[in-house]
């Protein structure tokens, strides 16, 4: 009898051997840091001495006293709104259009659109394009057209930094979420389209809205999650293009502000409070967006 019962399930030891190695690493480097970060955010901690508990002081400081934090939140939201939703819609649109191509062309065009997100060190090129002297490509081009008479210092001028960061961010945002869309479009069974045509679908827009999008809703959700997560994480682009900090904090994001407190001033309590705020913002926006997408096509 006993032997028979054991055959039904897998031995706990075996399950542990499968699950534990991954989850030990995952807990140590993903979950534990979040918990530590939340804990530190309620303390005054410089990394060397024992942290003392100050409860909400760090948050009060950030929201009531620190003007640059408020500015960085604003910049982060502007960038996230541009790179998130617009980037997401671009991913969807490009994937849709690419899906209309023949297989060979499809593979090549997919590569062209995806490549920017996997080339790590392209900032050099963007710096050359937006270079502030007459040798910069954009300056050279605009001066040749006669739009401007003297070169503009693009990456040092408050007016232009944020839009430029947004453009470069969009350029490199067609990553995994874009490929997910490509896969989603290819996964739709042709017979649905044939059935749809019989039911009175007249053009490709209707086909997209009434057939394709509802079928690939699960892909849309994963894609949205990945887009939002990376949109709120903009930081390196700013540092690489506009320096640290950018002129008058024109493109200073929450991530930059976190780095400032964390690695320049060793105010780990405040830095962790920033991290916690950003963490909450990301989780909440992800849930909101998931709710929104579940309404598509209904």
């Amino acid at each position, binding site marked *: 009898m006993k032997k028979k019962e054991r055959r039904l399930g897998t031995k706990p030891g075996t399950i542990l051997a499968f699950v534990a*190695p991954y989850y030990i690493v995952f807990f140590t480097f993903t979950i534990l840091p979040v918990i530590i970060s939340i804990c530190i955010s309620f303390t005054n901690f410089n990394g060397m001495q024992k942290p003392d508990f100050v409860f909400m002081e760090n948050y009060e400081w950030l929201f009531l006293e620190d003007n640059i934090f408020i500015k960085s939140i604003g910049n982060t939201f502007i960038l996230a709104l541009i790179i998130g939703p617009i980037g997401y819609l671009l991913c969807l649109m490009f994937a849709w259009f*690419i899906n209309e191509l023949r297989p060979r062309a499809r593979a090549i065009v997919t590569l062209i659109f995806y490549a920017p997100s996997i080339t790590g060190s392209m900032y050099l090129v*963007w710096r050359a394009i937006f270079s502030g002297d007459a040798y910069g490509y954009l300056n050279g081009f605009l001066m040749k057209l006669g739009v401007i008479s003297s070169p503009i210092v693009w990456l040092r001028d408050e007016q232009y930094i944020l839009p430029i960061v947004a453009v470069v961010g969009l350029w490199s945002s067609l990553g995994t979420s874009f490929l997910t869309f490509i896969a989603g479009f290819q996964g739709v069974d042709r017979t649905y389209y044939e059935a749809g045509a019989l039911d009175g679908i007249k053009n490709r827009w209707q086909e997209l809205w009434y057939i394709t999008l509802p079928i690939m809703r699960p*892909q849309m959700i994963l894609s949205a999650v990945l887009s939002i997560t990376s949109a709120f994480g903009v930081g390196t682009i700013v540092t690489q293009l506009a320096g640290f900090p950018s002129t008058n904090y024109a493109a200073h994001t929450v991530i930059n502000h976190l780095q400032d407190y964390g*690695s320049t001033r060793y105010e780990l309590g405040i830095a962790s409070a920033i991290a916690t705020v950003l963490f909450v913002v*990301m989780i909440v926006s992800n849930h909101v967006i998931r709710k929104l997408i*579940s309404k598509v096509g209904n």
Partner: protein
Amino acid sequence: MKKVKYRPKRLNRSLAGDIWIGIFLFIFGAFMALPMIYAICTAFKPADELWVYPPRFFVENPTLSNFKDLFRILDDSVVPFSRYLANTLFVSIAGTLGHVVLSSMCAYALCKLKFKGKKFLFNLVVLSLMFNTAVTAIPNFLVMSKLGWIDTLWSLVVPAFGSSLGLYLMKQFMEVMVPDSVLEAARIDGASEFRIFFRVVMPMVRPAWLTLIIFSFQGLWNLANTSYIYREDLKPLNYALNQVLSGGVTRVGAAAAAAVLMMIVPIVLFVFTQSKIVETLSTSGMKD
């Protein structure tokens, strides 16, 4: 009789629409590709073309001198180029291997074995897809120093094992592609779970582990973040090449050569695995 070649009729497609799509893809494709074309052109420009005014986009007399410059600069550095390359190769390969094995095993247990709490464990991974790891930089440093991994390559290799996207994709793919009946048959034949996993499941999910390999490798190859590594001889290749990049105007050609060398590897890998990656992602959807 003339043979009529059958071509499936494309439903609801107008020629005008096709043309607009072509124009649209061409314009945006050019915008996407220009920076990379620029980098390639610059890498092959001789010195006199780099400094011509007004600036010229395309290269006229391609030369390899920038690549020679790059290798000369890297040879002159305190740490030889081969050392940086070895570091990056070690981190990329070890990190990727560990990630594929650990997350595949775990994904198998999460979708095919029965035990308590597996839903909770998986939801944690899904939750972690929703925040950027940039927010955990500080506690991660504290964890690394507690482990004594500062200034070791393990600080870059081991965290890669636990990447959450890989586990997520693998689990979703197994759920669709590995039928329970096959596993049952193997169990009745008396095969152990480990044997089933390595001999039955892994061959069935080849597209998924290729995808995991590519995603993981791309991330690790491009790693320039050295907040855990201060010893010069342990730093990754991308860090060394970024130093060339920040070397000022005289090095623009060499820097472009460096950028081209760095981007070749992930792009070539993607070209060969694109169809497998798309196949894997087709099962990747998230339920609402």
